């Protein structure tokens, strides 16, 4: 049975679709800076969703979280990543056996899996984004994994992790908007610290190998 969507719900659904489309552009991007811009745009969209859920549910802590997200994930983190990316090879190659079309087909299959999984669950969905929230969150997480697997570049893998985390954050605020504010803030801090640690490792990688390619990571096997 089809339900009539309210205007905020339709807007939210549109933003969720935009999030996924933005995520899919990672499969055709070959430049580090573009990866980072995609992440920044996605973070703005997630902040918008967070703001929308906060206003709709009158949860003002989520409104605060939206602004904090915008500041850190939409502005500061991308700038930090850009500074990290300066001075290294700007291009990110796909593995030879995978082309853009095939990677998009794989991503499409994962999105299909996400939709199939979500329609099996009669969860008590939030009023802001009914039905689509779990599917979109799962799709962002799964495709984030795929980007990390398909791009053998340290910075690309960090961005993939961050987009995956955006999917988690999106899922958390739409599926579990009542999760205590302190947990939301802890999640955010956790991401920031993880990025700093990733940055430490990326710098060490560049120092040791003069490149950010992770194809050099092949000594530990078996």
């Amino acid at each position, binding site marked *: 049975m089809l339900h009539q969507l309210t205007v905020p719900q339709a807007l939210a659904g549109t933003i969720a679709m935009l999030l996924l489309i933005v995520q899919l552009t990672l499969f055709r991007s070959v430049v580090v800076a573009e990866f980072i811009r995609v992440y920044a745009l996605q973070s703005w969209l997630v902040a918008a969703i967070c703001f929308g859920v906060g206003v709709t*549910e009158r*949860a003002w802590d989520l409104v605060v979280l939206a602004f904090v997200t915008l500041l850190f994930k939409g502005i500061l983190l991308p700038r930090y990543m850009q500074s990290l990316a300066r001075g290294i090879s700007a291009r990110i190659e796909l593995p030879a056996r995978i082309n853009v079309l095939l990677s998009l087909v794989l991503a499409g299959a994962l999105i299909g899996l996400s939709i199939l*999984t979500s329609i*099996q*669950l*009669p*969860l*008590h*969905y*939030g009023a802001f984004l009914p039905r689509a929230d*779990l599917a979109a*969150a*799962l799709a962002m*997480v799964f495709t*984030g*994994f795929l980007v*990390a697997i398909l791009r053998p570049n*340290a910075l690309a*893998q960090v961005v993939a*992790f961050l987009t*995956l*985390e955006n999917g*988690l954050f999106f*899922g*958390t605020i739409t*599926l*579990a*908007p*009542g*999760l*205590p504010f302190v*947990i939301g803030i*802890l*999640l955010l801090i*956790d991401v920031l*610290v*993880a990025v700093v*640690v*990733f940055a*430490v*490792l990326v710098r*060490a*990688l560049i120092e*040791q190998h003069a490149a950010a390619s*992770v194809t*050099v*990571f092949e*000594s*530990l096997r*078996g």
Partner: protein
Amino acid sequence: MLPAVVIAIPFATALSSLVLPSRVSRVLTGIAGAATAACIASIALAAANGRGGLDALSALFLLPVGIVYGAVGIYSTWYVRAESIGADGDERYRREFLALTNAFACAEVVVPLLTNMAGLWVALEVTTILAALLVRLQGTSASLEAAWKYILIASCGLAIGLVGVVVLYAAGVGPLGSRYSPEWGQYIAIAGRLDPNAVRLAFLLALIGFGTKMGLAPMHTWLPDAHGAGPTPTSAMLSGILLSDALYVIVRFAAITNDAVGSGMTRKLFFIVGLLSLFVGAFFLLQQRDIKRMLAYSSIEHMGIVACGLAFGAPLAILGAFLHMVNHAAAKGLAFLSAGRIAARYETREIDKISGAVAVLPISGTLFAFAGLALAGMPPFGVFRSELMILAGGFSTDDWPIAALVLGLLLVAFAGIVRWVMKLTGGDAPKFVRRGERDIGAIGSMLLISLVVLGLGLYVPVPLEHLLARAAFILGGRG
């Protein structure tokens, strides 16, 4: 009060290690380890008698922290001195190592103290970040590779775990309202009213996500690298404590799932990952050439045994699985600490280049042999007792063919470990390797932990029996 103290001790020691000279902070680390172990023993005793505010599951899973951090703290008084990192070792390295080790212990002790499902995720993620920094600390190409793989794979795994937390939260919105704190006790209280499919999905995601941190196959790929490339005390803490911390979170999820939909699904999934882990651990053990990677694969094998014990579902098997987690922490802690001394003395981790360790390091070599035989499942060590309980529990159920398969895989692992232990400790030592040992801190820590390895094989104290029984009751049995 005491739970706050066991967090405060390593936290304060971590902070002081950043500013104090390493010769002072290494002593403080030894004291902190011993004090934390004493506090945890006191907490466990209280919980065994139904006092202290913590449930038996939390108290039981604190034990590996007390055992391993206690030993590692004392061991580190030796580790940051000459032999391990060079006589003129970098003071900055020592400070960073001590600060990170204590901070890591602090994060690890927080996990079993929590029952908030979202808070558990945050605490485990913090352990990932700190562990990655510790693994990277030695600055070699291998340690960088191991740290990268670890943080990427573990973080992605934990991301899946968080989806599990969110799905569980969403399942609770109906009975609990849209704004509630995701406390484990609340879910247990309303388990019957949770949507069964949502609970099943949450458990599946939690098992994949937190199972990655636990080193369960096929999500185990980071484990041999991180355990092999990190500093020795870090390897002991990763293997002895962190794997049990991840198991703690999975058991909390499993308890909710068992209450909500029965134990059929959790048991099936535990069987799958348990048997896979046993298979991977046992067969990869046979072909290892690096002493620490060999121990790492043994960890995967033992996590597989624990998962199978939980899967059998018989009370004896569940008791055995929980006891095995404690026994494994002690035996693996001892194995890594003694292996670290052997590797430092021979200046290599390659098994082919090490022989006669008992002649070179009479105490460390002998204790390594003890630890190896314990991990192989030889009597009279504790691991033998818990493996016997798991197998006896398994053979008493309809799943006895799986118990027979587990026994077969254990024999393969037994052959692998005993073969390497004999090679490393027996035979003639190379002439160029200096003989003898006088390092009181390292020897003392290993002797203390070996008392647990042997003691739990000879006798299980009554309070520990109570803890095990109460923890098994929390998980729930066959149904």
